């Protein structure tokens, strides 16, 4: 039940936003997260954005993981 999915913010109207994932757009509240901007990724849970996804961090994690793979070859 704590399922959350990363969605992309397409449009912001006050505390609500149009968010999109896999070509499907829906409305979500962004009232629980500060500084949400169009183009950001947020984690969507039960109709609310609960946190922003840090894209740089994700890239860095993936880079580190690739290194683990290489070290184990």
């Amino acid at each position: 039940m704590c399922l959350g999915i990363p969605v992309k913010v397409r449009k912001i109207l006050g505390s609500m936003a149009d968010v999109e994932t896999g070509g499907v757009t829906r409305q979500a509240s962004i009232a629980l997260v500060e500084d949400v901007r169009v183009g950001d990724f947020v984690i969507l849970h039960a109709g609310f954005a609960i946190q922003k996804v840090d894209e740089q961090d994700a890239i860095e994690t993936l880079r580190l993981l690739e290194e683990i793979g290489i070290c184990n070859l």
Partner: protein
Amino acid sequence: MQFVDEFCSPGLAKGLVEAINGLVDRVDRVDRMDKKIVLMEVCGTHTVSIFRHGIRNLLAPSIRLVSGPGCPVCVTDAWDIDSALWLSMQKDVILATFGDMIRVPGSQAQKGEGANSLERQRVGGADIRVVYSVLDALDIARNNPTKRVVFLGIGFETTAPSIALGIRLAKEQGLDNFFVYSCHKLIPPAMKALLESGEVRIDGFICPGHVSTIIGAKPYEFIAEQYHIPCVITGFEPVDILQAILMLVKARDRARIGGQCPPYNKDQARVEIQYSRAVKPEGNVVAQQILAEVFEPTDAAWRGIGVIPDSGLKIRQEYSQFDANMAFEIPQTHIETNLSGCICGKILRGIAVPLDCSLFGKGCSPEEPIGACMVSSEGTCAAYYKYVRYE
């Protein structure tokens, strides 16, 4: 970059599996002992992901993954379901709930005395509506001014801030026909209760990613400090989970350097964040503030576990006009649950697996669930039924 496919990469997963198993193999050889590394995933979403991606089968046999009490549906006490059933029968009431709750049995489940789940109650004529978000329930209240709308507040720290915000919005908008029956539960007190019980040995916690987006890392620190068990806050894709397992195996390895094995160098345990793309060490402060403004901690009953101190959330005095417990005289007669044979409680405490239950697949299935662990798709019994029944 969608942050899903990348963290499902078979290449990355393979590298991680080799790293984990290589390290475990080395530790096993040094230790020369047949001791399992027991890692508990607290969250039901992790349980499902671990099964769906076959992660258990990839790991060295000495790593054992056990499931904990992390499914809000599964841990909702039968007494709370009874109260929800009672509420749905009151005059002019519309009960709004997340869909997950609709089939959970109340205390009279096996006795066949009338309706015993919200789904059955609805067939019997009660106005019960499945909503996607608390905002939908507010809409229902706005559109039905002559009715009283009761929202069944279920969920952990992930969900509770949105319900808190819903209550604040109701106050701001002067909605006087909106109420919340709060069954919210908090994860760290449940982890503490598990550890205090001493029933299960745990060498590391795979901590819930989305609960932690809200609460951050600090609420788990007592586990590392007082119980010396490493914790890793973990995302939900297979690569996330494997990376977390590697971090926990490494933490164990680190702890034994220079020390006897076991006991470990206890002060080494700490809380780490694997899911750093979505979890900040301090969590989501805005969500924490709204949560604390509307709710306060209270003792709560967990199905199969019992009452855990300060593990639930009740609506504060300032917002008590929205508290269903205040607005309705809910009968307080607690009927003993009689689910003979169901061992959900032991499963939620990590001391039994569904295969130990004599009803598993024989009388209890997702179509005809007996216990809550089989009702919820994130329940351990449902996950076993779907993924390991034929192994």
